[in-house]
């Protein structure tokens, strides 16, 4: 990592230039400069993405896949071109494997429902992990309940890593699907999904990956991973809210029945019988979130222009810097000490309540997330009420980290 420090130094003009693309970072919060360190909850959006949305409404707004008129064709072309962009971004083998959804939650629900309806039966099992976000727990719980199936959980260790050695004993003939996060949102652990996918595939069990926290930081290749489904949200990777992606292998998308019915997803409708459209359209009922899709494509182009490798190096540099500074604070305790980590720093200070720290950081312009981060089982495992989580993006800089450090010390002093 150290070798990158010069190239990715925070004050290198190139990074300042990228930071300038995010106007919101110039604003004050509670009369203090904003240090936005809640990127794992949602990222900020570069001006180019905001402009793509405005341009869409000012220049080509029309429904897609419907009209022969010029605007409709323009918007349809842009929409389908965006699908191509997403395909290249995660290296899917065809754009037909890219389904636009409202987000990760929606994508997981789609699979849980559509897959569950035909593939899960009484007595079957679904395997998740103890690290999952609630949105990769509850949809499976719901379908298991409906189907009389059982939810199994791969445990974690004290470092917040999956106990991979227990996987063989948890996968068996009854397992229908494995659903695991690529990167943990509360601890930042990068899970060995390649190995998990291999092990599941040895028994012909499909694997869904919740990639919500991975796509902003890592380069993802769904073909190399060989996962069956991969889900992510736009809003965590510089794109607008309300747009996300479900990647599904062609064979699965063809096999599964639709999640929702309506316009767009049909070929022909009669009162006796309806035939469904081809993939991916069969999973995209109703008018889609067009400007969201265009914003997502712009966000991807923006990230690719910077370079995913550069982004990763820059973010791990910032993470390391923050870790070094905060670790020097008496009482600092990092929660989640996995070997492989994304730029997410979850911690506690002695017995101070994360909520108290969060409020006092906010008053000093520092935005972090506090609480259970929608992963209550993880908090139960560590027997803590929650954590303080600082999560980094390439557009953060050294000043943000210094501000966090100073604000945290002030909060601690006030609370102790």
């Amino acid at each position: 990592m150290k070798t990158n420090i010069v190239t990715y130094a925070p004050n290198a003009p190139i990074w300042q230039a990228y930071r300038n693309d995010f106007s919101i970072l110039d604003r004050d919060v509670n009369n203090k400069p904003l240090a936005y360190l809640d990127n794992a909850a949602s990222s900020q959006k570069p001006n180019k993405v905001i402009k793509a949305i405005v341009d869409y409404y000012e220049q080509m707004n029309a429904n897609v896949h419907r009209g022969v008129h010029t605007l409709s064709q323009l918007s349809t072309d842009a929409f389908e071109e965006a699908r191509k962009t997403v395909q290249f971004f995660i290296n899917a083998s065809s754009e037909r494997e890219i389904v636009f959804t409202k987000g990760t939650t929606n994508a997981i629900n789609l699979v849980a429902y559509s897959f569950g309806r035909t593939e899960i039966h009484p007595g079957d099992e679904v395997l998740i992990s103890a690290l999952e976000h609630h949105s990769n727990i509850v949809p499976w719980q719901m379908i298991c309940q409906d189907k009389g199936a059982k939810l199994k959980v791969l445990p974690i260790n004290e470092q917040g890593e999956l106990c991979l050695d227990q996987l063989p004993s948890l996968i068996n003939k009854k397992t229908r699907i494995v659903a695991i996060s690529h990167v943990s949102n509360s601890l930042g652990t990068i899970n060995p999904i390649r190995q998990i996918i291999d092990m599941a595939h040895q028994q012909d069990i499909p694997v869904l990956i919740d990639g919500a926290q991975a796509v902003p930081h890592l380069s993802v290749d769904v073909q190399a991973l060989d996962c069956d489904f991969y889900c992510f949200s736009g809003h965590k990777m510089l794109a607008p809210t309300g747009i996300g992606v479900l990647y599904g292998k062609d064979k699965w998308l063809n096999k599964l029945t639709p999640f929702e019915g309506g316009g767009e997803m049909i070929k022909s409708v009669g009162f006796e019988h309806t035939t469904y459209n081809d993939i991916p359209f069969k999973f995209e009922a109703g008018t889609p979130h067009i400007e969201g899709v265009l914003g997502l494509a712009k966000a991807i182009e923006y990230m690719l222009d910077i370079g995913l490798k550069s982004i990763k190096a820059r973010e791990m540099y910032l993470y390391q810097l923050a870790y070094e500074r905060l670790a020097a604070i008496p009482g600092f305790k990092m929660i989640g000490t996995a070997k492989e980590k994304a730029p997410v720093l979850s911690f506690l200070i002695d017995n101070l309540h994360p909520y108290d720290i969060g409020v006092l950081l906010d008053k000093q312009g520092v935005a972090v997330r506090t609480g259970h981060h929608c992963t209550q089982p993880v908090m139960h495992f560590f027997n803590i009420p929650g954590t303080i989580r600082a999560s980094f993006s390439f557009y953060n800089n050294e000043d943000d980290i210094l501000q966090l450090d100073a604000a945290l010390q002030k909060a601690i002093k006030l609370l102790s």
Partner: protein
Amino acid sequence: MGKCINDIQDEIIEEFELFEDWMDKYEHIVEMGKKLPVIDPAMKTEDRLIDGCQSQVWLAAHLSDGKVFYTADSDAIITRGMVSLLIRVFSGHTPDEIANAELYMVDRIGLTSHLSPTRSNGLLSMIKRMKTYAKAHLT
């Protein structure tokens, strides 16, 4: 005859006017949180719990000589400070006074952001529960 609810609110507003900076305000709240008497752990029962998303509050109330007295605790100190403010305002008044009180103080000392329903400290539920107890004991 003790002070009436609005006198106490005005007193608190005046106290907070001394602070220019947010951090000073919160320092004051934290101090009050530290001073709030610790309650018997046996009182921290499920039925007294108000579950905010991030911090928990336990609230107990009893009637004595026609007046309501509240005690409370929280695992977060800022929340304890907020509760202590509320207790200072409401405790020792009649159910009627409490039920009819208009709580303008929170807004005036600039803590309204803590009152929105999505806010995670359960302050709003706390006020509601304090009032509900009073309403249930109206004479």
